[in-house]
């Protein structure tokens, strides 16, 4: 039970690690790293879900009857692209924040905003 589903355990651990980093860290770059780890866990989840016991890669060949499901792989390609776009946009925002606030620490940004009000 534990070993048989080990990839799902990895998914859960990665997901929680990523989620924790997003919540607990005040550094904007670290938050984005956490977000990436969080998303990556979902990629692994989709990929391991597609595996069929005894199935091979879905390439048509003689003598093979059992294939793994290629659809989740294709789906997750889309999600990976989305993940890259999100990371890029997040980093771009972090650069702009650094330019205008002079900091990428959440606490300092909040402090500067409170002074403005």
């Amino acid at each position, binding site marked *: 039970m534990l070993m048989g589903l080990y990839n799902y355990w990895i998914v859960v651990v990665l997901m929680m690690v990523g989620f924790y980093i997003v919540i607990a860290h005040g550094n904007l770059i670290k938050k984005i790293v956490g*977000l990436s780890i969080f998303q990556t866990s979902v990629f692994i989840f989709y990929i391991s*879900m597609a595996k069929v016991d005894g199935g091979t890669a879905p390439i048509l060949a003689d003598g093979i009857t059992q294939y793994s499901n290629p659809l989740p792989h294709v*789906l997750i390609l889309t999600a990976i692209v*989305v993940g890259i776009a999100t990371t890029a*946009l997040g980093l771009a*925002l*972090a650069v*702009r*924040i650094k330019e205008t606030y002079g900091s990428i620490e959440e606490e300092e940004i909040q402090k500067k905003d409170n002074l*403005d009000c």
Partner: protein
Amino acid sequence: MLTHLPVLQVIVPLMAAPLCLFLTRSRLVWLFALMVSGLAFLISALLLQQVMTSGIIIYELGGWDAPWGIEYRIDHLNAFLLLIISSVSTVVLLAADTSIQKEIPAEKHSYFYILYLLSLAGMLGIVATGDAFNVFVFLEISSLSAYALIALGKDRRALWAAYQYLIMGTIGATFILIGIGLMYQMTGTLNMHDLSIRLPEVAHTRTVFTAFAFVIVGICLKLALFPLHLWLPNAYAYAPSIVTAFFAATATKVAIYLLIRFTFSVFGLSFSFTALPLHILFLVLGLSGIFAASIAAIYQKNVKHLFAYSSIAQIGYMIVGFSVSTTTGLMATLLHLFNHALMKSALFLALGAVMYRIGSVQLSQFQGLGRQMPITMAAIVIGGLSLIGVPLTVGFVSKWYLILAVIESGWWPVALLILLGSLLAVVYVWRIVEMAYFRPPLTSNENIKEAPFSLLVPIWILVMANIYFGIDTRLSIEVAQAASQSLFGVNP
């Protein structure tokens, strides 16, 4: 041509967005974007008419049969939402040219329209598609462009707000993705209609329950349900006025559509409301949203913040209608969806006009504006009355149905709380009225004149719609009723 309407609805703005790069002059891009949005509006109107006369439209992308291919499925609910989004988008765009002159640097104007059209395409896509994974893709198209649009705001806090929205939004979307993955794992299909047939067979498994929980939490993050609303006030307050007017009217509505679609159609009413205690959960969260956000709105110094909090409260009303889960309750939610889109787009556009003239929307700057910008302020007053739910405005219609639904179910204390919530709206609207009409103008604002014509026209189109649909409720009620009945009809 007519048979391809469902896909054209999404493809037209999606393809038009990159074309904006070729048009260099700001006004030219604006005209182009306006035309595209107008076309989308026309398509959605035709779709609604088609659905009302001949029922559900099914469109198979590329000719591949569902569930293998992606299917666009337009029923009453989709058509209604498509119409709301595209109509608000078009009217708001009318004001865009003037409003962004002062709020966005000239070299970024064409990017603004690209992002706007992409966001529009994403939202229309979410609503039009009948494929669960497609929902995620369009959700990200609209969200990613939304983050960038919000970051275009003049204030540097816009960047920070966009960043926070990005983090929260991505977590929400990823949750939805996990839920969709779990559903696929159990059923082997992504088509919503197919899912709704196959899910009941495996409904007792823990996997489906987990999928449901992930999807619901993900969507609730996106729709800014109290207490997951923290990203919303700053994102709305610091975004350019046009962006705020557009998103306040559409973005959260699309998320509510998803909530309805997943709970009623995909998972089915009986599963959704027994797997999780949605009745009581949403009732409590909706009501606490109404009170917490309304009270927060009363203490805001920035009027955009004030109306952003009020948006969260209005979402609370929609969620209360949803939690009743009767035909009338759902109808109240749908009506309020439509009506709130009209109110908030009018109000935020009017704030855009104030921003255009004064360069700030701090409440203290509103002193005496009733005399200096009478037409704009009159629009804010009517929008505010509509928000409170005064008869002859749209706000009254939806609150009436909401209270009717609640009383039908015998929850009369809830009805009292809803009325109490409306009283809180009176307080925050009154603060603006008092400032604008009962105080002498600020000396620094002495030379302020009425907003330009190009802003007043779209504002008043929306204000007149607020009054028109408050008196002649045939269209909105007929569609909302048909949509709500079809949702209950499919899953008795």
